[in-house]
């Protein structure tokens, strides 16, 4: 397998192509793994401690080999960069059509450095690559940007697909995301701010070339089996109709939501606690990322009668809210009307901003107001005008979103990097310590789900390489109490037992390697989760990967590849100075017991350190510092990485 990396230096305007050879895929699989290698390499010759908004930062885009190759498992593009809001390793996935179309240009990896003197967009049309003035796009949201570029660039030699930033990215808001085709957002870690700081408004692609598959017969055989297996699971049909919204009732039942800044774990307000609303709103189109056999999304139109607030949004077209859109609106902000939740989803996608950190920045202040820790005067100072900070008040919430997106007042400026930095800055400004009300995990990243009863999820929030995140070490075994999977992975049922710390850190360690593979294959995670045959992605997708790339790694080698990829991400963070003490979570999760849901009285502190120890042990890292050892890195053929870490004094002794 070979691919092309397009290097763009926006300062000089230099554009050049580099071949990524087969040996790179042998080492880094593809997608996420290759992105990490490109970024690691970049920071060997650039200052890794640079300001992420400086021209020295790199923005990498990559798409893995299974994306759009007929696997039917969706397409996920991956962006990788140093995070401007968390100041550490940052990456984010996004589907849509852009990652599919870019493969037909022949460029599957982009490395963008420098800063353009004024706003530009990058146009990749097969092998013709050019930079263009984007002043007419600047100030437009992602939906309009996409529509304008499609109109401007037309449908020859193919339809135009785009990756763009909205106003949040333009204003370098730290939690700004990047949107693919106005359909899907790479929300996490602030990739939008990186592009905004580079004056790169959008990337538009048109491709009429081909993707080569190494062994097509073998791939087609795999795809047939894959589709039949998924089709055989009745639960897939429920997922097609609801998407991740299916989690609402389950989480309501067990107490796994994140209500009012995490004070509770169940939604309030009857309508919002069930997914029945999918029947009431008018669905007019399915929506799907390319090459996806499932199609979990749909477009709806508000007629005005569907809910109390629907009359405010008549004629608005929105996509079905997925779980975290709901978790951030109905959960963190206690919005109780589905039309308003949908509107929130539209706002955050159009402006191009992460809904997790955005909602938790707002809910932090709402809680301070609720507890009367700040006065009306304090609020007026912060906003420049009065603000109700009322839970669930969508009109006011929309103003707060605009404040952050447009950086229009002190609030916007303080909280543009998320609730952790916002709370630190606000505490300093007020001369008080409000940190116990800030909700975050590693790096200061937020996540709108209840954590305290779930030790694996808690561990994920503390150790994920890109900051608190549920996906890197996805704790399915534990939250769904899959003792069958625990048995398969570890030979016993402990990993599925919520009441003990055993095998929770181990779970994170193993699953992180598997998820690294999924992210490197370029596939969506839901097929894997829904298919009974799917729980070991190294074997599940192994044949597809080998058939497409000709990289003949068996399951064991693939797991080692996944582990290598995770270790490179860790090494990046170690170079920046991150140690065990940074693998941490907020006070509420650590110390404040749950008081509702099926698992009351839980705090993370009971098991946190034990689970963290176990995670490092399973990773083969030093338990005291959290750092990697040379022997572990050598085992993974990462001697060169060990050398760099050693010279940075970021290597633990063996």
């Amino acid at each position, binding site marked *: 397998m070979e691919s092309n990396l397009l290097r763009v230096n926006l300062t000089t305007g230099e554009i050049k192509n580099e071949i990524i050879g087969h040996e790179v895929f042998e080492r880094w699989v593809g997608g996420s793994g290759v992105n990490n290698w490109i970024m690691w390499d970049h920071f060997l010759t650039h200052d890794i401690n640079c300001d992420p908004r400086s021209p020295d930062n790199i923005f990498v885009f990559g798409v893995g080999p299974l994306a759009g190759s007929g696997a039917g498992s969706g397409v996920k593009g991956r962006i990788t960069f140093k995070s401007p809001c968390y100041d550490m390793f940052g990456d984010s996935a996004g589907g849509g059509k852009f990652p599919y179309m870019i493969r037909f240009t022949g460029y599957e990896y982009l490395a963008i450095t420098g800063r353009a003197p004024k706003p530009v967009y990058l146009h990749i049309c097969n092998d013709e690559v050019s930079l263009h003035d984007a002043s007419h796009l600047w100030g437009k949201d992602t939906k309009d940007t996409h529509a304008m570029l499609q109109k401007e660039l037309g449908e020859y030699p193919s339809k135009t697909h785009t990756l763009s930033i909205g106003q949040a990215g333009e204003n370098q808001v730290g939690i700004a995301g990047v949107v693919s085709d106005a359909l899907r957002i790479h929300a996490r870690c602030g990739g939008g701010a990186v592009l905004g700081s580079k004056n790169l408004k959008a990337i538009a692609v048109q491709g*009429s070339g*081909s993707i080569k*598959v190494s062994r097509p017969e073998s791939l087609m055989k795999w795809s047939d089996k894959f589709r039949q297996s998924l*089709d055989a699971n009745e639960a897939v049909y*429920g997922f097609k109709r609801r998407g991740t919204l299916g989690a609402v009732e389950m989480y309501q039942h067990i107490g796994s939501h994140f209500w009012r800044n995490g004070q509770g774990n169940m939604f309030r307000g009857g309508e919002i606690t069930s997914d029945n609303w*999918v029947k009431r709103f008018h*669905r*007019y*189109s*399915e929506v799907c990322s390319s090459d996806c056999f499932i199609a979990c999304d749909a477009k709806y139109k508000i007629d005005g009668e569907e809910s109390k607030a629907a009359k405010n949004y008549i004629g608005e077209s929105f996509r079905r809210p997925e779980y975290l859109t709901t978790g951030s609106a109905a959960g963190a902000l206690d919005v109780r009307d589905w039309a308003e939740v949908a509107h929130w989803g539209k706002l955050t996608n159009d402006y191009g901003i992460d809904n997790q950190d955005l909602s938790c920045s707002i809910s932090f202040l709402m809680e301070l107001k609720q507890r009367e820790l700040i006065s009306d005067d304090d609020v007026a100072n912060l906003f420049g005008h009065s603000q109700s900070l009322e839970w669930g008040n969508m009109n006011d919430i929309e103003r707060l979103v605009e404040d952050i997106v447009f950086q229009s007042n002190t609030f916007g400026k303080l909280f543009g990097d998320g609730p952790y930095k916002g709370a630190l800055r606000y505490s300093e400004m007020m001369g008080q310590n409000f940190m116990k009300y800030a909700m975050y995990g590693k790096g200061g990243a937020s996540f709108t789900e209840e954590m305290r009863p779930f030790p694996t999820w808690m561990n994920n929030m503390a150790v994920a390489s890109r900051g608190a995140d549920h996906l890197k070490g996805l704790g399915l075994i534990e939250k769904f109490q899959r003792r069958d999977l625990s048995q398969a992975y570890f030979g016993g049922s402990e990993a599925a037992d919520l009441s003990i710390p055993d095998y929770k850190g181990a779970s994170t360690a193993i699953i992180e390697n598997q998820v690294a593979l999924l992210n490197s294959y370029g596939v969506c995670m839901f097929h894997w989760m829904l298919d009974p045959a799917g729980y070991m992605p190294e074997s599940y997708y192994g044949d597809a990967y080998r058939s497409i790339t000709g990289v003949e790694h068996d399951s064991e080698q693939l797991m080692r590849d996944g582990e290598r990829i995770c270790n490179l991400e860790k090494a990046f963070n170690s170079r920046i100075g991150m140690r065990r003490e940074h693998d941490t979570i907020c006070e509420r999760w650590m110390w404040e017991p749950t008081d509702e849901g099926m698992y009351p009285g839980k705090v993370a502190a009971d098991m946190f350190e034990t689970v963290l120890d176990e995670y490092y042990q399973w990773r083969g890292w030093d338990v005291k510092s959290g750092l990697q050892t040379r022997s572990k890195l050598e085992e993974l053929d990462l001697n060169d990485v060990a050398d760099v870490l050693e010279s940075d004094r970021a290597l633990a002794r063996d």
Partner: protein
Amino acid sequence: MDTQPQKELVTGETWYQPGDKIPNVGMKLFALRNQCTECNVCEVACSLVHSPDGEINPQLSRVRIDHAPEKPTKINQEGLGFVAEICHHCGNPPPCAEVCPTDAFYYDPKTLAAVIDQDNCIQCMECVPGCPFDVVFVAPSGELLKCDLCGGDPVCVKACSTRPEMLNKGKQYNRMPVLFYEEQSDFNQISREEPVARDEVGMMQAMLEAGKISSGA
């Protein structure tokens, strides 16, 4: 997987002389309009199965996904999603073959689908406007692309995701895909079935009310 028409049987020989009575295609493709999710898997699969070099390229596909033509209804003002543009395998000889000046169309012995033989095709492109459904496509290389039913096991149908909307009571479809490979009469039967387990106002209802379920042929 034997999905290519038997090329050795169609190259170099005309199965039917001009003026011969050619039997029509029996089982053909149908698409439930407006169920399509634009997943592109059919395009990917079609291009791959026809490629001698293991190439995937939607521009080499003989089925194409497009936006459904906008047709305001009382329920929906924006048109209804996406549609799979499929070859309708018109009565033989189909219009595309009739306008061909060089006799580059042959008939697959199994399916009786009209197949373009690239060795004889002079790429004049008369078949493109000649097709009443605009489903003869031109590849970037200039090659003319027409659906050949994959020799009787159409890969697009296999690739098509089944949708949860309709349960076909009694026949072979537990869940309905967008693309079907059926006899006309069977498809008529399928498409007349009421949707089950859906009381949702929206696409299905609009589709039924507007009479949009059709084979298009």
